[in-house]
């Protein structure tokens, strides 16, 4: 039982990391960045290439760290580019326009990746020895440990960043009322750009962590992205703690659904969607979302 909880927690913290990207952008722009999953997929590919290139020269663990940084940087760069080209011109357009533009971008990115990197999935070698550690009845792999440690650290850091720093404060202000924030001298364009950087860098980390186990392929981002988005909505989109809660809840329920309730593995991916519909009916603004403005 505890084992399933641990496994669910691991999957869930990945969802949570990706969900943060959706929720941060939704917080400031009130728009669903459909291309988020594909941006993190590109970052993962870059990390894979950097890692495979470097590990012949240097220690794999150092190569892995450099690869993660490279993946984060390239995802962030791509997100900034996309924001500038495809979202900024549409900031004052009707709501449907940026959403359609984002869907178009998502299609472009995943197919371009398939064209460049091929549709075959590629292995991301684990840079460390992944022998499971037995702990009473509990089995923990170092890989799971890495995921839990990394994602929890990042979430805590993000939390303090938003609450404590000037930029974090500015982000909250923009999310609450962009117009007033601008009048108060906040450079909203800069804050929005920064939000995209933050979200996609976190997403790239999640993508890399996932692909250590599941390989890298062009549609990697779509399914994780979709589930993470659902996680963000379940928790209350625009709400940072909501994204974390939603991600972990979704991960745990998926694992329990297959292992305990006996849902066939083929239907595992449907759990998230059914959960989404139930939550939306019960609390349309998500578990932690409220109608009061406490976004970001």
């Amino acid at each position, binding site marked *: 039982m505890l084992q399933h909880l641990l496994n669910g927690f691991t999957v869930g913290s990945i969802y949570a990391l990706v969900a943060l990207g959706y929720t941060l952008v939704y917080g400031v722009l009130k728009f669903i960045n459909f291309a988020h999953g594909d941006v993190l997929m590109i970052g993962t590919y870059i990390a894979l290439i950097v890692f495979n290139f470097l590990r012949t020269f240097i220690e794999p663990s150092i190569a892995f760290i450099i690869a993660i940084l490279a993946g984060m940087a390239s995802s962030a760069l791509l997100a900034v580019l996309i924001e500038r080209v*495809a979202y900024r011109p*549409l900031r004052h357009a009707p709501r449907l326009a940026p959403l359609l533009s984002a869907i*178009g971008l998502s299609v472009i990115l995943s197919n371009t990746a398939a064209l460049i990197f091929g549709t075959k999935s590629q292995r991301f070698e684990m840079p460390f020895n992944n022998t499971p550690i037995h702990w009473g009845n509990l089995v923990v792999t170092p890989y799971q440990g890495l995921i839990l440690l990394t994602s929890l650290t990042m979430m805590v850091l993000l939390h303090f960043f938003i609450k404590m720093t000037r930029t974090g404060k500015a982000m909250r202000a923009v999310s609450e009322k962009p117009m007033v924030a601008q009048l108060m001298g906040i450079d909203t364009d800069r804050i929005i750009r920064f939000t995209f950087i933050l979200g996609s860098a976190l997403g790239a980390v999640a993508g890399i962590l996932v692909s250590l186990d599941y390989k890298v392929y062009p549609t990697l981002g779509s399914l994780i992205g*979709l589930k993470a*988005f659902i996680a963000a*909505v379940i928790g209350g989109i625009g709400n940072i703690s909501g994204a974390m809660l939603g991600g972990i809840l979704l991960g745990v329920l998926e694992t329990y659904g297959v292992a305990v309730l006996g849902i066939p593995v083929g239907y595992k991916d449907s759990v998230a969607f059914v959960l989404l519909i139930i939550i939306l009916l019960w609390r349309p603004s998500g578990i932690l979302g409220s109608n009061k403005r406490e976004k970001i």
Partner: protein
Amino acid sequence: MISLVLLIGIYFGIYALLALGQNLITGMTGLLSLCQAAFMAIGAYTTAIILTSHHPLPLAELIVIVVFMGSLFGAMIGLPTLRLKGDYLAIASLGFGEIVKNVLLNADKFTGGPMGITHIPSVQLGRILISPYDKSVYLIFVWGFVGVILWGLFRLQRSRFGRALEAIREDEVAASSLGLNTTLYKVVAFMIGAAISALAGMLWAIYNGSVIPQSFDFMLSIMVLCMVVLGGLGNYFAALVGTMVIVIISELPRLLGFSVLIPAQLDQILFGLILVILMIYRPEGLLGRPVSKRNS
């Protein structure tokens, strides 16, 4: 050459039905739904299952059953999600599409799993055999449906119901304050759109003689959306023009035998580009109604 033109004509007709359904949902009512492919799959699988088990079935009965199934599923997805705001609907409908595909892949008993259903017999209309081997008859058959549905949709647009949908699209709050039951109208519009797509699925299944789950993936829904947006949201003739352009772009190289030279991804990158570029430079599409000033 003649048979090539007929083939394009048949595909054009089937996609035109999907685009008309999408236009009713997205263009007229302003709901961004991303599951035309799922509704089409429901129509196609209903047809396949019924025709392979009860072969000599009058066409009229088949049509009634397909329309019923399409609108039933339309109501099933519509009732819980249409009470939500636009962006959530996009995600929920996307999720619904994934669930449908998941079920088709896994419920082997009814759907044949990944192999699908093959050997779907032709149907009889009076004394005429509607078979995929006689392309000109099939073309007339398909366009008969397009004609009838187009006529119905035009009648609908000018009725009280059609005006209500436009009112909801322009301002839902104002519409409901005038006493319209907006949820009811939206669900019914959704059901009609779903039924039209199910009919397209029926035509597809009879024409191909077999159905597989992979035909009805997310990319198909995107392609249909792209057709409607390219033509111009909220205009049925524009939807047909958009469909024609996309069908020619995507089917012509394949039919002329160039498909070896052009990777499949290029098509989809092109659809993505069309969406993004249109949203930035011409959000009303090729022939669309001008976007109302008040919304922007």
